[in-house]
């Protein structure tokens, strides 16, 4: 009974401590106009993606063989593609897929990485060595190679692209979290919690994990951009999302033969990818400056 009470007190104390840094963070972050703008852009994009069924002017899969490769016009703001499909509608619908690929792959890879990093850092010893050596091996390959490997084995398609891209986020997060865990392990409040008998698992989740979160959040933001780009590269090699999926990378890869003839077919999806990745990175930069200026 006493233990429970003590934990409750400790948790309340942590809670108290977290709130004011949050306010501090917001104060700093708000001053960074670039990051704020990026954040608003992304918010708008997420809303647009969510509202795609209502705001997209056309069915993204509807062929119109009489309007093939038409440039932007009043009817089709971003023009039509090789099948006469409305490019704007496809971009709006594609935002759902592309954002999901970015988000899910990073959450998946990041989640696994964070767990591994926590365990490695907290337990130390042979578990630590094992996890870190495996991460070294994974890091020894350029991310795109790993993704190609995974997708080549599993077969192309959006779902497998997510797994492929997730894999190479794992070691990055594992290293990051292990580093923070090592220093947090010796923090006074953790010692205190341990002294009053809080169990290891609870210690990791309740007390150490929140401390690593700022750096994790920054990385998540940046990795989402990388993941969207990697998915596009996979499409270029023919291993990405398969047409007719309006995933942005697939649209870009599919329309690349028209550069010079009907450049609008790739211009708008390309722009969408560019702006999104840019926004995620600028947001990440802003978050880093506000959360943890020491983080690289």
């Amino acid at each position, binding site marked *: 009974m006493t233990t429970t009470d003590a934990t409750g007190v400790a948790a309340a104390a942590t809670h108290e401590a977290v709130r004011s840094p949050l306010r501090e963070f917001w104060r700093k972050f708000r001053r960074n106009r670039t990051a704020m703008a990026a954040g608003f852009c992304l918010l708008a994009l997420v809303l647009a993606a969510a509202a795609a069924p209502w705001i997209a002017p056309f069915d993204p899969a509807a*062929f119109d*063989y009489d309007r093939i490769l038409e440039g932007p016009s009043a009817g089709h703001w971003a023009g039509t593609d*090789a*099948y006469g499909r409305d490019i704007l509608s496809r971009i709006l619908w594609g935002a759902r897929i592309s954002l999901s690929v970015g988000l899910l792959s990073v959450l998946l890879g990041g989640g696994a990485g964070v767990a591994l990093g926590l365990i490695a850092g907290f337990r130390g010893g042979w578990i630590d060595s094992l996890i870190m050596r495996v991460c070294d091996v994974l890091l020894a390959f350029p991310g795109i190679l790993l993704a190609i490997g995974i997708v*080549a084995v599993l*077969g*192309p398609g959006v779902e497998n692209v997510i797994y492929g891209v997730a894999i190479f986020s794992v070691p990055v997060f594992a290293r990051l979290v292990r580093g923070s865990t090592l220093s947090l392990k010796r923090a006074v409040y953790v010692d205190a919690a341990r002294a009053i008998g809080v169990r290891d698992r609870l210690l990791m989740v309740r007390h150490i994990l929140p401390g690593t979160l700022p750096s994790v959040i920054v990385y998540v933001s940046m990795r989402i951009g990388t993941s969207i780009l990697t998915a596009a590269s996979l499409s270029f090699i*023919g*291993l990405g999302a*398969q*047409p*007719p999926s309006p995933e942005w990378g697939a649209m870009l890869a*599919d329309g*690349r*033969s*028209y*550069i*010079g*003839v009907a450049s609008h077919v790739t211009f708008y999806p390309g722009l969408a990818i560019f702006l999104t990745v840019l926004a995620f990175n600028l947001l990440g930069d802003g978050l880093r400056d506000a959360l943890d200026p020491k983080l690289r």
Partner: protein
Amino acid sequence: MNRFVLPLLAGLLAGTALAGPAFAAKDLVVGLPDNITTLDPADINDTLSQSASRTMLQGLFGFDKDMKLVPLLAESFTVNDTATEYTYRLRKNVTFHDGTPFNAQAVKTNFDRLANPANRLKRQSLLAMLAETVVVDDYTITLKLAQPFGALNNNLAHPGAMIHSPKALETYGKEIGRHPVGTGPYKFVSWEADTLKVEKNDKYWKPGLPKIDHVTLKSVPENGSRIAMLQTNEAQFIYPLPSEMVKMVEANNQLELIDAPSIVARYVALNTMKKPFNDPRVRQALNYAIDKNAYAKVVYRGYAGPLDSAIPSKLGFHVTQPNQYTYDLAKAKALLAEAGYPNGFEAEMFGRNSTNFIRGMQFVQQQLSQIGVKLTVTPLESGVETARIWSVEKPEDATVQMNYSGWSASTGDADWGLRPLLWGKGFPPKFYNVAYYKNDTVDTAIEAGIATADDAKRAEAYRVAQEQIWKDAPWIFLGVENLLAGKSKKLTGFYYVADGGLQMEEADLQ
């Protein structure tokens, strides 16, 4: 870092020096879509490497630019009635690039090498029926076959049966694919990574040829980069030209479009052992439900013709079928209703995952939806395709319902257009009969066609086969795509042949 930078600078300088302008010499650059695999035609299975070897090597027969069989190193031939013994008179005064004379012994060396399974050559099947080669005299050779084979000359015209210098075969052994020595218009110079260079053979047996001094074949996989090379005159010929890029060639007054019918049949094979495709009325209904003109327009931007029989019109013994499946939705629906599917059905369609295949599949999907047939399109990567379709051991294990495919019969003969695809004994994994189509009339005809060298008998056999297949409709007959390539207007005498091969013997730059 210095260790890297120095050789780098040296490399750059050397590169600049080499790239200086070449005077007067006629240099041709050809942009290819892929890498050359080897230059030993007996061991090649891709059209591109065959085209590359064809610049240097020749066979007893070949195809002219219209896919007509023409004698090259053979002057004439005789054959017995049962098509088991062929005798060839060879061309005299021909020498290989290394000075070795071309004669019957050279032919024997090459054919014995190709026919011997122990050599494990990929084109061994071309001469698998060969029992014995007999050198009659220096310029006469007799081929004795283990079983009748009527299309032997076509097989000998296949690039796989081209003749290497026997001396080179002896010298280079397994490395022959890197050191081709033949009798062709150009001689081998170098082949590094993605670039093959050949030069004029001054002693070529056809007088006045070739006219080009150097030919460079360069692999440029990215379509956009390849057409850019043509636009900037870094290349004078590129292929293939994706149909969406035709406009770029047409817009440039220095360039010319090559647009000619190919021998590539496009169709959807229907698994005739599976419901509902086991009912010929269903298969016919699907044929009626597709607007073939729209297919050509949408999938190939109009650069395609009809597939009006089981084989494309450029193949030998092709017969245009009188009762075409003209686009008729009412008829299609009626046939479906008659077969017991008034509301259509659902099915899955496989096909390769390349842009064109996917475009074609999307089109078929959309067209069939008009008669209530709902298709799931599953694009397969080549490795997966092999596992799912071609390696299936027993017909009952096949999961394929519909397969969007293409076939190019590289011997130019009806036999290779039908036997691998529609012969009852050619189910996967033996051949490619993925429709699992078996019809006794067709089987007999296909077997009769190959058992004789008598053209009249062969024509009759293939007429019967084509008629029956058309009626049974084991495929949705979609079309025959055109070959598209771009070339500089200065380039003449350069041919893109219906089988997808290149002929540059007569090429010239103005």
